């Protein structure tokens, strides 16, 4: 559906909510070592040329948000519809892939599917919820033509982007990954999401940076390397690299450090981790 005349798609991460049920700022909740806002921003940035964070006027200096390009609410009213309209007003020729920042399971595959099945002729392309069959306005592409329709809808007293999509010419698509749009609203849901994400992240192929010292540096023939590995733990990684480089030290003679400090051999590895294997030391 991405024909060459279509408007470019920019990303908008909605981070203006009040997180009432969570009782903590949902944008700042951390998963796998990063705030959800940063995770959402990085995910969107992998697919889209420009990404912004939508905030209310009073939030522009908040440290979680201020490090990203911001679009501050510029139209009257409350709720996500204001953020979406403010983005459409700021760049009238762009379409917006709007993402809530409480979707920790949202994946690159889910964004690709949305972009692939985008309907540039309508007002929006949205996922259909696997829970209630209704459109999900906060993981959707909003076309430039939606600006005027949303303004008119708000003028007649409307404020709910979901109701707007139900009444409008929006394409609804079925998510390939049914869990991609599960949102996290309460401390209990946050705990469940954390427990579910660790093993998913650990089993994925991820980029790791390995440094070698002393005997292991000589045996590997290099002092560092960056590689893609599906090793879930440092223990798996040691086995993988021993097979590749022929290390003579057995694992129980070696210690491991991850991201600058000693680590357990069974700690789940994450993308971007820096791993150092430590052969028997001999200082002094």
């Amino acid at each position, binding site marked *: 559906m991405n024909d060459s005349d279509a408007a470019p798609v920019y990303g908008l991460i909605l981070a203006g909510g009040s997180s009432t049920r969570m009782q903590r700022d949902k944008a700042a909740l951390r998963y796998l070592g990063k705030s959800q806002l940063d995770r959402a921003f990085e995910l969107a940035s992998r697919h889209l040329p420009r990404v912004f964070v939508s905030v209310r006027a009073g939030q522009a200096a908040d440290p979680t948000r201020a490090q990203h390009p911001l679009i501050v609410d510029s139209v009257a009213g409350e709720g996500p519809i204001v953020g979406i309209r403010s983005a459409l007003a700021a760049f009238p020729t762009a379409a917006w892939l709007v993402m809530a920042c409480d979707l920790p399971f949202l994946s690159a595959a889910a964004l690709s599917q949305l972009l692939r099945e985008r309907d540039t002729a309508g007002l929006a392309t949205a996922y259909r919820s696997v829970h209630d069959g209704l459109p999900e306005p906060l993981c959707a592409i909003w076309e430039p033509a939606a600006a005027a329709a949303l303004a008119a809808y708000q003028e007649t007293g409307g404020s709910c982007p979901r109701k707007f999509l139900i009444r409008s010419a929006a394409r609804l698509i079925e998510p390939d990954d049914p869990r991609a749009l599960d949102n996290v609203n309460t401390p209990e849901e946050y705990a469940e999401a954390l427990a579910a994400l660790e093993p998913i992240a650990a089993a994925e192929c991820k980029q790791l940076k390995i440094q070698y*010292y*002393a005997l292991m540096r000589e045996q590997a023939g290099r002092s560092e390397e960056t590689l893609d590995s599906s090793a879930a733990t440092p223990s798996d990684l040691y086995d993988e690299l021993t097979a590749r480089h022929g290390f003579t030290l057995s694992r129980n003679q070696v210690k491991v*450090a991850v991201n600058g400090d000693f680590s357990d051999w069974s700690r789940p590895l994450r993308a971007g981790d820096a791993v*150092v294997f430590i*052969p*028997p*030391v*001999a*200082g*002094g």
Partner: protein
Amino acid sequence: MLTGGLTRFRFTQSAIDTEAARRELLDSGAGGYVSFEGWVRDHNEGLEVTRLEYEAFVELAVKEGDRIVADALRRFPVKHALCIHRVGALDLRDMAVWVGVSAVHRGEAFDACRFIIDEVKHRVPIWKKEHYRNGDSGWVNCERCAAAPRHDHDDGDVHHHAAVPALQK
């Protein structure tokens, strides 16, 4: 206290300035000072050593070394403590490591100094490659000892490390 952002464990690429290091430990409340110097020796496990190379995982070594000195300051009632380790190429008689402790009384200073050098040898990611008269070289504790379990015996000098019943080369 000797803090103020300075770590209490450091590396140096050049000769250790023991006089400057000692001055960092001065304290009008201290009645004494103990230091230990580890030197490069010309033999180890029956082989003639001609020179050494030290290599360190500096980021973690400084962190762990600093934790060791902090441990010593907690365990023993001493005033100040500092450890400096060489990295790079060293010749015979060069100083590889220096530990200094000042305290109100000598007993604690001796104890803390011994504690620091023993812990540094076991815990800090520093590696030593020995070059031998016969042309061989090897990473201490890693190669000739690779197959043997470690049973350390403390003799308190530079070349203390795992005992090996028989050389495997």
